[in-house]
């Protein structure tokens, strides 16, 4: 029998089973090389003492869990970073109600409202580097707008980014600016699909104020709230750019978070402690996995619901 014919027939017979894999291969290979394997490699590197020179196998020294032990028991900077991560996580969530509030404010049909919506969204489009620079100047103790304003109200000038107790809050506030814009746009889209008849009916029933928002509007906005929650939590734990630009972790390491501390340990003038850095990364990864697991579980429930 002619072999090409056999091949063709075999392919034809299994076309529907094979095609998805052919389409997946390029994406899967790239993703495996640059995302999946590196995660496992980081786990391995975290068990070594390694300065990043030469290969891990020849130049790294296997030390088991020593990196973790040091991190969790003897590293004050790690504690500060972890604590700051928690601050980020909690205060960053303020962008969700703030975004909802602005979205409710802008959810009207007047002339030029589209332009206003775009302009409110503006901070999200520009890079965090520029946001960081803008806010560094905003906080400038000598001639920043911030001190101009609080001076006008009668307060003494504050050096927000130069004060170890204030610096993290200063950076978080800067982060809230683009993040609120992001949540706002999610809610504006969600509000488009709010049923005006339900709202009107509730109004006739005497629903007002917070009650109206809580019982009638918010349930309809649940998908938008979920996405806003996902992107805000992930965003808060990923914060790096703003810290790097605004305070570089300082003063005295007071505004570091895990992502920044990891970078500093692995790739900075303080020397290349790749193993130690990888251990920090693993801890951050495990913290994020808690949230990622929750998101995936929610999405899985949705999938099951839609596919019957």
């Amino acid at each position, binding site marked *: 029998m002619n072999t090409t014919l056999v091949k063709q027939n075999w392919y034809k017979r299994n*076309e*529907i089973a094979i095609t*998805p894999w*052919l*389409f*997946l291969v390029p*994406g*899967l290979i*790239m*993703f495996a*090389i*640059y*995302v*999946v394997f*590196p995660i496992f*490699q*980081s786990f391995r590197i975290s068990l070594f003492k390694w300065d*990043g020179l030469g290969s891990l196998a020849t130049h790294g020294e296997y030390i088991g869990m020593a990196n973790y032990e040091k991190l969790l028991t003897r590293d004050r900077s790690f504690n500060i970073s972890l604590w700051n991560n928690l601050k980020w996580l909690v205060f960053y969530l303020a962008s969700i109600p703030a975004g909802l509030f602005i979205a409710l*404010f802008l959810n*009207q*049909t*007047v002339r030029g409202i589209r332009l*206003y919506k*775009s*302009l409110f969204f503006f*901070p999200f*489009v*520009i*890079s965090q*580097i*520029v946001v960081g*620079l*803008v806010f560094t*100047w905003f906080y400038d103790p000598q*001639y920043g*707008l911030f001190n101009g304003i609080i001076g006008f109200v009668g307060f003494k000038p504050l050096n927000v980014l130069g004060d170890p107790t204030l610096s993290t809050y200063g950076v978080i506030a800067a982060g809230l600016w683009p993040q609120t814009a992001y949540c706002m746009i999610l809610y504006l*889209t*969600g509000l488009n699909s709010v049923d005006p008849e339900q709202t009107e009916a509730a109004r006739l029933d005497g629903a007002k104020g*917070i009650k109206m928002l809580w019982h009638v*509007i918010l349930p309809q906005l649940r998908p*938008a709230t979920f*996405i806003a929650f996902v992107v805000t939590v*992930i965003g808060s734990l*990923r914060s*790096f*750019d703003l810290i*790097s*630009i605004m305070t570089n972790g300082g003063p005295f390491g007071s505004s570091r978070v895990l*992502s920044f501390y*990891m*970078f500093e340990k692995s*790739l900075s003038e303080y020397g290349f402690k790749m193993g130690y*850095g*990888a251990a*920090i*990364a693993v801890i*951050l*990864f495990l913290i994020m996995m808690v949230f990622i697991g929750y998101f*995936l579980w929610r*999405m899985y429930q949705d999938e099951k619901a839609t596919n019957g």
Partner: protein
Amino acid sequence: MFPKPIEKSSRTWQLGYQALLPTVMLLWLAPLLAVALFSIRPDSDFLVGNYWGWPSSFEMAKNYGMVFGSAMPRYIMNSFLITMPTVIGAVALSCMTGFALGVYKFRGNLLIFFMFIAGNFVPFQILMVPVRDLTLDIGLYNTKTGLVLFHIAFQTGFCTLFMRNFIKALPYELIEAARVEGIAEWRIFWFVVLPLMKPAIAALSVLIFTFIWNDYFWAIVLTQGENAQPVTAGITSFNAQFRAMYHLMSAGSIIAALPPVLMFFLMQKHFIAGLTLGAVK
């Protein structure tokens, strides 16, 4: 606390709202407007402490001219050369993965899909050391190609999520009808599904353009110096060069921020469609 439609409220509140809008907007954008104002001041204003008053002269041309005379255009060019191939690569790969995961039922489908989503959310730091090593090993450290390859791979996660959900929402009868006609599967992809994906491709392209343009972390991990660094990383060297020259640093920041802003205003509809995918059901 759900505001009534403005048409149904009192005349006073209507007027009040119209006045409130620009005021709130100016406050919201104040930090940015301050920088824009800085960027057109002469440097002498800063020496005499005139930060917030009327500029003593308008030096827009001079300040921005200085920026264009620096290494800035080089960084901007690098940003384009990194962003464009990434957009094309990630969108192309995810059209394929999205098609595979959205159209076919096979074992492991959901597992692979969730792997792409999970990968898209991991902290960059868990990838940093191995990816940097890999890039060094294959000789692409400090090249635009090295950065592009990583970005394509990483963005494929998010893009797959997006494309798969989009394709899943397309009418499945179209594909079945094509199969009944005996059309090969890859032709179904090319001639039936791909033409319907144009809005998704547009939305993703704008979104990825902005994400990659604004990337800073990978730029400083995988590149150094003028020949490969994009503008987000370049601006820190620019600022070091012009330290305390606020009129120039402001102008530089504005230029660095401009391309994604323009992209957003030109492609607004697509941008928002992409960003809010999943926010409504």
